[in-house]
C-alpha cells in the first residue's frame, strides 16, 4: 500500500467511528454507505484488479437477496444458511459468466454487455416467476431481531453489520492485491496474451475474480434484504446498484484497494443529503445534482481521487489505470 492509501485508510476508519455520535437518520445512511462501499470494493476486485468489468452485478446482488429471502419466506430457513447458499450460487454464476467470457473470447465492453444481459434476463425472469413474488415482490416476515436472523434492532447494530461486511470486502480486496494472486490479476488485465505466455491461466484468473466478486455482492444482497424486509426485482436485479458502484469506484480510483471505499464514502452521503435537502420540494432536483456531480467528478478526476491525490502528493507508486491506451 502507498502512503496515500494508508492516509485514506485512516480517514475511513475515523469516518467509520463517527456514526456513533450520529442520530439514527445518519446512521441509516452510514449503514448504506458501508454496504455500497463494500459492493464497490467487490466490483473492483473483478473490474479493477483483473479488468473483468461487469455491468451486471445486480445479478449477484439479486441472487443473494432472493436465495436467503425466498428460503426464509417459504421454509423459515436461517438467513445465515441463505447467505452462504446465496454466496455460493452467485460465485457459481460468476464462474459460468466469466468462463463464457474467456471461452468465447468476449472481453472488454462486450463482456460488460454480456453481464448486463444476464442480469436483465434474471430481472425479467424474477419479475414473472410467481414463487418469487413476480413483479409484486415478497414481504419478508420480521423475525426475532438479532444476529441469528440478521435483522437488527437498532440503526447502530445495522451499521455495525454493514461495517463488518465492508471489513470483509476490504480484507478480501487487500489480500488479493498483495498476494501473488493480485499480480496474476493485473497481468491478465494489462495483457492477456503476455500473461498467458508467462504461464498464467486467464480462465482461472477471470473465473476467480468473478466468483469472489459475485459471492461478496451476494452477501450484501442478503444483508440488505434482511434490512429492507422486502424483496423487489428492480431494487435487487435492476442496473441501479451496478451503475452506482461503478461510479463510486471510478470517482475513488479504479484498481486501488481503497478507491471504491473513498468514492462511496464521499458520493453516497452527498446524494442522500441532496435528496433530503431538495428531493421533497422539486422532484428530480436531487437526481439532477447527483448526475451533475457524477459528470463533474469524472471530468475533474479522470484517474480517480486516489490517483489524483497520489499524483499531487507524488509519493504514490500507482499501478497504471487499466485500459489506458499506450502512447
Amino acid at each position, binding site marked *: 500500500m502507498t502512503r496515500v492509501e494508508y492516509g485514506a485508510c485512516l480517514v475511513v476508519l475515523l469516518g467509520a467511528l463517527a456514526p456513533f455520535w450520529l442520530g439514527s437518520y445518519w446512521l441509516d445512511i452510514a449503514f448504506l454507505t458501508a454496504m455500497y462501499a463494500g459492493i464497490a470494493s467487490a466490483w473492483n476486485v473483478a*473490474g479493477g484488479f483483473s479488468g473483468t*468489468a461487469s455491468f451486471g452485478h445486480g445479478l449477484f446482488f439479486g441472487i443473494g437477496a432472493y436465495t436467503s429471502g425466498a428460503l426464509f419466506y417459504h421454509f423459515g430457513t436461517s438467513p445465515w444458511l441463505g447467505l452462504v447458499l446465496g454466496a455460493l450460487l452467485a460465485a457459481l454464476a460468476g464462474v459460468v459468466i466469466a468462463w*463464457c467470457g474467456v471461452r*468465447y*473470447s*468476449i*472481453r*472488454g*465492453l*462486450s463482456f460488460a*454487455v*454480456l453481464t*448486463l*444481459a*444476464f442480469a*436483465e*434476463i434474471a430481472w*425479467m*425472469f424474477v*419479475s*414473472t416467476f410467481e414463487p418469487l413474488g413476480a413483479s409484486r415482490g415478497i414481504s419478508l416476515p420480521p423475525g426475532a431481531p438479532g444476529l441469528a436472523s440478521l435483522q437488527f434492532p437498532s440503526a447502530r447494530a445495522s451499521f455495525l453489520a454493514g461495517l463488518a461486511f465492508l471489513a470483509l470486502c476490504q480484507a478480501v480486496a487487500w489480500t488479493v492485491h498483495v498476494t501473488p494472486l493480485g499480480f496474476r490479476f493485473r497481468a491478465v488485465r494489462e495483457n492477456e496474451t503476455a500473461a498467458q505466455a508467462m504461464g498464467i491461466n486467464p480462465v482461472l484468473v477471470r473465473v476467480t475474480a468473478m466468483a469472489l466478486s459475485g459471492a461478496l455482492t451476494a452477501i450484501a444482497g442478503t444483508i440488505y434484504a434482511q434490512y429492507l424486509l422486502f424483496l423487489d426485482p428492480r431494487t435487487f436485479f435492476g*442496473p441501479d446498484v451496478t*451503475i452506482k458502484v*461503478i*461510479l463510486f469506484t*471510478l470517482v475513488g480510483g*479504479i484498481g486501488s484497494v481503497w478507491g471504491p471505499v473513498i468514492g462511496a464514502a464521499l458520493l453516497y452521503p452527498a446524494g442522500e443529503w441532496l435528496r433530503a435537502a431538495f428531493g421533497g420540494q*422539486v*422532484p*428530480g*432536483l*436531487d*437526481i*439532477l445534482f*447527483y*448526475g*451533475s*456531480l*457524477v*459528470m463533474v467528478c*469524472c*471530468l475533474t478526476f*479522470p*484517474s480517480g481521487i486516489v490517483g489524483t491525490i497520489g499524483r499531487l502528493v507524488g509519493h504514490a507508486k500507482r499501478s497504471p*489505470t*487499466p*485500459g*489506458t*491506451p499506450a502512447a
Partner: protein
Amino acid sequence: MLFVAGVVQGIVLGIILALVTSGMTLIYRVTGIINFAHGALMAVAMYLAFDLQRSWGVDPLLSSLAIGPLMAIVGWTLFQVLIRPIRRQHHLLAIQVLLGLALVIEALLLMRYGADMRTAENVFSGRFTTVLGVGIELTRIVAFIVSVLGLTALGIALRRSDWGRRLRATAADEMAAHLVGISVTRVEAWTWGIGVAILGFVGPVLADVFKMTPDMGLRYTIVALMIVIIGGGRTMLGTIVGGLVVGLSETLGLLYLPGSYGGLMPYALLVLVLVVNPRATLAMVRGR
C-alpha cells in the same frame, strides 16, 4: 395468421429500432464510445415535440424537421464539452459521464413534464391500416417509412459521399486518417452531431408510437446497445439485422410465450449471439 401479424409487427418495430440505433453505431464505430445517454437524448427529442405541440400546436412530423438540426448541435456540443477531454481515458469513464448525463436529462424531464406517461399525436394518429391483412396503427407505418428512408439515406451517404468516406476511414484506422489529412477530431465531432441528430429527426415521429416517460432513456439505451452488439457494431447492414432480430424476437416472444417472458427473448438471443458468433464479438473487441 397470428404468426403473420407477429412478423409484420416485428419487422416494422425492427426497422424503427434500427434507425434509432444507427446513431449509436456511428458513434461507436468512429469514437469507440458507447453513448449511454442515447435513449435519454431520444427522450429529449420526443418531449420537445410534445412541448411544441402543447404550446403552439405544431405537428410532431413537422417539428422533427427543426428538432433534428437542434439535436445535431446538442450532439456536437456534447462531444466538445464532455467527451473530448476524456476520450483517451479508461472507456468506463466515458460511459459513466454519459450515464451521469442521462440522469441529468431524466431529472430535467421529470421536473418539467412530471412522471406521467405522455404521447404527442401527429396527423396520422388514431387511424389504422392493414398490411398483409394485419391491422396496424398508421403512425407506426409512418415511422416505419421514415425509418426506411432514413436508413437508405444514411447508407448512401456513408458509401458514396466524401463525408462518408472520411467517417469510415477514421473508423478503420485513426492514424492513417491523420496521415491523409483528415481532421479526426472534426470527424468525431460531426459523427456525434449526426448520431444525435438522427434521434432528433426520429424521436418526434415516434412520440405517438412509443410512450414517453422521463425514465425511458436507459431502457432504449439498452435496446440500442443490444442491437449494436447483435449487429456486430460495424455496419449499417448489421444494425438493420440487429434491429430486425430484436424487433421480431420481442414481438413473437410476447405472442407465443406466457406472461411477459417474451420480453426475455431479445436478451436470450443477445447471449446466444455473443456466445456462438465470435465474429460479431470480435468486431466489438478490436483494441478500443
